[in-house]
C-alpha cells in the first residue's frame, strides 16, 4: 500500500521542516519527504494543494471511560472522535472503573484499542491503587503492560511524600509522572474560579492558589530529587510564572494546557450552563492572557484537550451536582488554530505543541515525518470555515460549550500507520 501526498505545505517541527513538498508513504512508514516525488506504480495519489501536512497529532490527556462508564464513551467511540479531530495518537487517563492501576486493565484497554483500530491508544497508569493517594501501584508491571505515564488524573496526589516516592520510583523507569494540580483543602466545595463572577453567581470558589501551591510543591520535589514532572491542564497565570521560572533554572518540568483555558473565562458561567464546568475551572481574563504568553514563550509545551465526555444525565442537573469536563477531541484543533490566526503561535509552533512535544514528554516514537517513522499524518485544511455541532460528534459525549461556535481550519485527513482512518476531504469547499 503506497500513498503519495502531493503539493501540500509540509510542517514537521521535529525535523525543522516547513516547505511545500510531497510525502510518500510505503508499508505504513514515511518513505520520503521532498519536493517532486514521482508516484510509484500503484500508489494512491492525493492532491493536497493548499493543505497542511503535519505529523499525526497527539493528545496526551483524554478520558475514554471504558471500562466502567461506557455510556459516556467507549474506546471505539473515543478513537473515532480522535481521528475525526485530527489525532492519530491519544493517551488515556486511568480514571476508569476499575481504575487502570494494574496490568489487566491496561491490557484490556490495549485489546479494545486494537479492535477499534483507529488511533494509537496509549494508556496512562494510576500512581496509587484506586487513585486514592495511598498505596503505590506496580509501575514496573504497568509499564511492561504498556502504560506510557503515571497519573492519578483528577485526584491530585495530595500526600507530598507519596508524590516524592512516585517521582523517584518512576524516574528509574523513565516514566513521566503527570500531576493534576489542585490542593483539595483549598478547593474544597468549590464549583468555579474564585473571583468576581463567583461572587456574583454565589457559587463557592476555587482559588488560583489551589493549583499554584501544588505546582510550586512539585517543582520543589522535582528539584530536590532530580526527577521530572509533567503538569496537566495548567490554567492560571501564577502557574505559568512558576513553571517558567523552573524551566529557566533548568529543572525537568513540562506542562500542558487545554483549549478552553485560552478560549473561555469564568464570565461564561453567568447562566449556570454546566457545559462550562471543568476542573480546573475556567479562570479570568488575565489568566487567559498568561496562558497564551506561556504557550508563545514555550513555558507550556503541549496542548491537550482533557477530553472528558459525559452523558446527558451527568450534565443536565444543578451546577453543583454536574460532572466536570468538556468533550474536546473534535474541537481541540479548531480552537487551537485560533492561536495561529491571532498570531500567538506560528504554524510550526502549534503543530509542535500538538505532536512532537507530547511525543517527547511521553517518550513516544511519534510526532515526526522523518524517513522510516510510522506514517501517522494529519492533513489540515487551514481555511475551512465550519461550525461546531456537538450533536454530531463521534464522541458519545456531546457536552461542549463550543457548540454553534464558528471556527476556521480543521483536520480533513487522519492517517495512522499509512492507513486513512478519517477522510473529511469530501467536505472540502
Amino acid at each position: 500500500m503506497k500513498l503519495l501526498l502531493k503539493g501540500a505545505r509540509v510542517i514537521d517541527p521535529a525535523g525543522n521542516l516547513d516547505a511545500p513538498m510531497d510525502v510518500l508513504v510505503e508499508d505504513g512508514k514515511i518513505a520520503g519527504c521532498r519536493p517532486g516525488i514521482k508516484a510509484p506504480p500503484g500508489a494512491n495519489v492525493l492532491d493536497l494543494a493548499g493543505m497542511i501536512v503535519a505529523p499525526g497529532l497527539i493528545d496526551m490527556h483524554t478520558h475514554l471511560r471504558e471500562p466502567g462508564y461506557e455510556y459516556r464513551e467507549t474506546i471505539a467511540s473515543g478513537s473515532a472522535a480522535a481521528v475525526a479531530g485530527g489525532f492519530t495518537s491519544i493517551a488515556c487517563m486511568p480514571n476508569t472503573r476499575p481504575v487502570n492501576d494494574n496490568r489487566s486493565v491496561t491490557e484490556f484497554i490495549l485489546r479494545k484499542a486494537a479492535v477499534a483500530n483507529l488511533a494509537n491508544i496509549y494508556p496512562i497508569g494510576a500512581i496509587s491503587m484506586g487513585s486514592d493517594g495511598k498505596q503505590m501501584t506496580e509501575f514496573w508491571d504497568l509499564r511492561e503492560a504498556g502504560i506510557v505515564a503515571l497519573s492519578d488524573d483528577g485526584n491530585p496526589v495530595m500526600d507530598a511524600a507519596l508524590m516524592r516516592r512516585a517521582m523517584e520510583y518512576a524516574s528509574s523507569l523513565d516514566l513521566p509522572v503527570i500531576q493534576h494540580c489542585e490542593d483539595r483543602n483549598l478547593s474544597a466545595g468549590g464549583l468555579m474560579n474564585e473571583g468576581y463572577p463567583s461572587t456574583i453567581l454565589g457559587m463557592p470558589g476555587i482559588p488560583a492558589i489551589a493549583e499554584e501551591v501544588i505546582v510550586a510543591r512539585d517543582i520543589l520535589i522535582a528539584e530536590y530529587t532530580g526527577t521530572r514532572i509533567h503538569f496537566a491542564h495548567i490554567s492560571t497565570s501564577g502557574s505559568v510564572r512558576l513553571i517558567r521560572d523552573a524551566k529557566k533554572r533548568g529543572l525537568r518540568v513540562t506542562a500542558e494546557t487545554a483549549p478552553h483555558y485560552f478560549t473561555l473565562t469564568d464570565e461564561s458561567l453567568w447562566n449556570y450552563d454546566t457545559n462550562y464546568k471543568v476542573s480546573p475551572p475556567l479562570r479570568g481574563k488575565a489568566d487567559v492572557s498568561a496562558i497564551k504568553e506561556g504557550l508563545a514563550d514555550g513555558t507550556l509545551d503541549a496542548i491537550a484537550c482533557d477530553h472528558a465526555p459525559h452523558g446527558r444525565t451527568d450534565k443536565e442537573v444543578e451546577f453543583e451536582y454536574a460532572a466536570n469536563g468538556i468533550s474536546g477531541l473534535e474541537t481541540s484543533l479548531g480552537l487551537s488554530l485560533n492561536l495561529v490566526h491571532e498570531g500567538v503561535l506560528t504554524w510550526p509552533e502549534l503543530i509542535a505543541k500538538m505532536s512532537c512535544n507530547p511525543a517527547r514528554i511521553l517518550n513516544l516514537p511519534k510526532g515526526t515525518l522523518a524517513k522510516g517513522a510510522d506514517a501517522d499524518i494529519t492533513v489540515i485544511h487551514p481555511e475551512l470555515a465550519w461550525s461546531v455541532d456537538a450533536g454530531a460528534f463521534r464522541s458519545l459525549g456531546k457536552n461542549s460549550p463550543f457548540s454553534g461556535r464558528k471556527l476556521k481550519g480543521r483536520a480533513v485527513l487522519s492517517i495512522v500507520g499509512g492507513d486513512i482512518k478519517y477522510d473529511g476531504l469530501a467536505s472540502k469547499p
Partner: protein
Amino acid sequence: MIKLGKKDILGIQEMTTDEISLILETAESFLEISTREIKKVPTLRGKSVINLFYEASTRTRTSFEIAGKRLSADTINISASTSSVVKGETLLDTARTLEAMNPDIIVLRHSAAGAPHLLARMVSQSIINAGDGAHEHPSQALLDMMTIKEKKGRIAGLKVAIVGDILHSRVARSNIYGLTKMGARVVVAGPATMMPRDIERMGVKAYTKIEEAIADADVVMMLRIQMERQKQNVFPSLREYAQHYCLSRRHMKLTGLDAIVMHPGPINRGVEISPDIADDPGCSVILDQVNKGVAVRMAMLYLLSGGNE
C-alpha cells in the same frame, strides 16, 4: 402602565428599577388584605402555585403559601431532598412531572445556586426563586426594600449597612442589587473570611469592623450566621463572633438618628443581635419584615400570573 414583562423572577440582578417599583407598589396595595377579617380575595382563583422546597424553610415557605391562599390560588407544598449521593429523581424530572400537571407558578427553594435558572430554561411555568444557594433571594430583598421604604419614607439616599456572613448570603446579594439600584448607599461588614472576593465591584464599600460600617447608617441589616461555617474555619467560635459582630445597644450610638435594625430571620439571639435590640420596637423592624413578606409575595404571584396586563 409598567408591566412585569417576565416569565420568571430569578433575581434582583436582572430587574429594572421600574420593575422593582411596580412590585413594591403592588405589594403596598395588597397590604390591606391581610388586615381584613376575611383575608381572601378571588384574584388568583383557579391558579395553582407549587412551592417546591429542596431546603428546609419555615418562614419563606409559609409566607408564599399564605400569599397564594390570600389570593385564592391553590397552593401545594412539596418538600424534596437534595441528596446527590442517593440517586433519586433529578430536579428536571421532578419539574417535568409537575409541569405535566399544569401548575401556573413553581416557587423553588434550592441549596444549589442556579437551580431556578435551570428550571426556568426547561419548563414552561413561571419560576420564582425563593432562594438559591448563596446566589439570590429576591422576595427577601423586595420585602426588605418595602420595609425600608415604609419606615424611612424612601430608599434613595439612605445608607444601608449589611453585616455578617456576606460570602454565603443570598440575602446580601439580592439586597445589594436592589438597594443600589434604588439609589441607596450600601456598605458591608464582616470578618475577611466572610467577604466574597472583589465584593466592592458590586458597588459597595466593604469593612471588617462593624463600627466603621454602621457609622451614620440609616438601616442596619444583620445576617444570619450558619453554625456549620465554624467547621470550615470561617470563624473560630460563636463566642468570638458575637463579641465583635453582635449588634448591641452601644452600636446604636454610632448609627444615624432613628436607624432601623433588620434581620431576615431566623435570629440567633445574642449572636447577630442582642435580645434587647431585637425586641426594641424603637429600632427593630424584624416583624414588619415578616408582615411585608406576605404582601410582596402576593404581588410577585399576582404579577407573574398576568396581573396588571
